[in-house]
């Protein structure tokens, strides 16, 4: 890539960082220059975020229909998967899967719910099934 070809497209980084790129200068030697972004990269990021949004909406729908507990919704909202959630809470992965069931979730002790609430950065009340209100977020 020649230095003059470094893309300067709009991206999410615009107000934060201009990243450093290595490119060939006019004399054939490598130089560095800053770039505001590249459209291809931005689209790839958009695709990933669109996928995340679908997963969140899907989870929300399931919670509202009473199929799963809010743990799944908040897990998706915080971009986690079961492995990461397990690492943060200290619960085993199979335990977390059980907590996805509303019947199990509703009987959870205060202490366990508190752990989830802490990890998800929400209040204990928001986590409870009967107060579930995803539109607020």
């Amino acid at each position: 890539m020649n230095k003059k070809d470094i893309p300067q497209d709009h991206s999410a980084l615009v107000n934060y960082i201009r990243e450093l790129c290595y490119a060939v200068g006019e004399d054939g030697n490598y130089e560095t220059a800053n770039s505001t972004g590249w459209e291809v990269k931005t689209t790839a990021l958009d695709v990933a975020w669109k996928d995340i949004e679908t997963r969140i909406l899907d989870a929300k729908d399931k919670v509202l229909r009473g199929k799963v507990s809010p743990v799944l919704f908040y897990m998706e909202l915080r971009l986690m998967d079961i492995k990461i959630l397990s690492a943060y809470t200290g619960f085993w992965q199979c335990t977390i899967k059980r907590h996805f069931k509303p019947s199990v979730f509703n009987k959870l002790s205060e202490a366990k719910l508190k752990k989830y609430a802490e990890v998800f950065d929400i209040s204990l009340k928001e986590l409870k099934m009967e107060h579930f209100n995803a539109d607020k977020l």
Partner: protein
Amino acid sequence: MQINFEHRQAAHCENGVTTNLLRFSGIEITEPLAFGIGSGLFFIYIPFLMVNNAPAFSYRTMPGLIFKRTCKRLGIDVTRKKFSSPDSARKVLDDCLLNNQPVGCQVGVYYLTYFPKEYRFHFNAHNIVVYGKEDDRYLISDPVMEDTTSLSDYKLSRVRFAKGPLAPRGQIYFPHLDEKVTKEKFAKAIRKGIKQNVRDMLYIPGPVAGVSGIKFVARKILKWHDKLGNHKTGLYLAQLVRMQEEIGTGGGGFRYIYAAFLQQAHDYVPDDRLLAISEKFTAAGDMWRDAAVQAAGIFKGRLTQRDDFVNMHDRMYQVAEVEKEAFTQLSKLKF
């Protein structure tokens, strides 16, 4: 308390931390040199490690290795510590800063508040330098940022103890320098770095890593298309491009850094073939970028025919061939 630390922006976080810490110790090193001596260039496909619901790809070596190898090859001792509790982690960090030693830290990106929201995933192998403390705020030099920044005690502790795959566990590291690094030592380190990189890319066993890993993924694209359909394959390709061009971890970008490394290595190892091979890596970097444009067509939904996926497959095969040739030529250099 603030250490007189020079912040220099880098294309990739670990290169940047390595370069900045070594420069602080008085070694004249640049980002490409650190990357090359640490044998940073790589390709690996890790099918069983799902990141954001798509398989993981990496265009560079394991996190931590670039710093480790670069220091080792230059004959520099390294202190590296992990912690079980945030309190002891904070104490050791404070002690280092009191001793006028800037410290490299491995951190998770998700809670890194100065990053744009769009880039904050649960990715735990980001690297920053902590170079001082002022009224309970730690002064941070993040090599992918243009300027230095700061984090509160709580926030720094949170990113240092992020959880999940590659959890940093408060890891800190810094070099100790006893003697000056001579030009001969640099030349020797460069040879070692190239040698190992040749081995990593050409001769590593198994189908998923090195040059054969690129071809493996190319074939996989066709299989994904048959089995999982356009949408899912598009998601996987988006992941491939993101890993290639993600902030501070550019893949095409890595090829350019390696090309720059070979050019700069020429100052230490005067062999003109290095310059010719450097151009090959520039070409490989360009081809990766063109492949990314093709992939973008697919995940945007503009290209949907099977031919388009075959095209993607062919492009990756060609890149693999170019890189194979370049590394084979490097392996033949006798120095």
